[in-house]
């Protein structure tokens, strides 16, 4: 791993943390519709996936969850496992989806949808509440919208990013 790569990846990790914190401070992005938030930090994950690859994306994603836990929500509590499950599902499917003929926006939408699926699964398991499965279709509909927005952002930013770096 070159110094340049380490520096860029750490910068991207910091950016994703900043976006997470920023998002939690802006009410429009957060909790306007119960259970749905835009997930600005995923812009970075999509970008890293296209700039580097699956391994780096997993590293950034897991570190982000860990650092967000330390900085804001607390480690190994229910919120931590929610975001961990969501992130793992999301990055997993995006790695796979990138190999298909989907565009960046399609990949981001799938990532967003699987983020919801992962969270619902862990919620059913941790809260012993099988009824939550009934909310899944609504959450997927919401995810498709947020995923498309995130994908569009990532695409636009990545274009600028490649020009400048």
């Amino acid at each position: 791993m070159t110094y340049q790569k380490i520096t860029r990846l750490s910068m991207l990790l910091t950016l994703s943390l900043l976006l997470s914190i920023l998002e939690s401070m802006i009410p429009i992005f957060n909790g306007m519709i119960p259970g749905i938030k835009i997930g600005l930090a995923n812009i970075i994950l999509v970008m890293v996936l296209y700039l580097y690859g699956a391994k780096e994306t997993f590293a950034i994603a897991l570190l982000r969850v860990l650092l967000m836990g330390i900085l804001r929500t607390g480690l190994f509590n229910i919120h931590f496992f929610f975001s961990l499950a969501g992130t793992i599902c999301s990055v997993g499917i995006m790695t796979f989806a990138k190999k298909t003929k989907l565009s960046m926006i399609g990949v981001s939408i799938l990532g967003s949808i699987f983020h919801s699926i992962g969270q619902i699964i862990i919620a059913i398991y941790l809260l012993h509440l099988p009824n939550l499965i009934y909310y899944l279709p609504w959450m997927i509909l919401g995810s498709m919208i947020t995923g498309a927005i995130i994908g569009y952002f990532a695409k636009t930013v990545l274009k600028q990013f490649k020009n400048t770096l």
Partner: protein
Amino acid sequence: MNKNDGIMIGVILILCLLSILIFAKWDKKGDKIAIVYYQDEVILTIDLAKNEKKDYQVMGKNGTVIIEVNQDKIRVKQENSPLHICSKQGYISKNTESIVCLPNQIVIQIQTKNAIDTVVH
């Protein structure tokens, strides 16, 4: 955005709408009760068939949670949490719905009375 994205979005949209329609049919008719859990333990059972209008108070992790029953609907009226997700959610009345208040570790679930009888037998 290309053609493949369009096809994927279309397929997922259809699946979502179909499952929403199917789930809507799964709401069982009959008298309902609401069960309130705090950290996995039942702390309150409310009969929704009585059609009353009443407030209940339970203790959540962040303090008092006020639960309002209005006819056959139930909602969280007031609670102490950063995002107020569960009080924003509003009324629920179907047995496919539930209210989860993570910061307070309070869960409200609706069940049909017959369903509980079957479980008991």
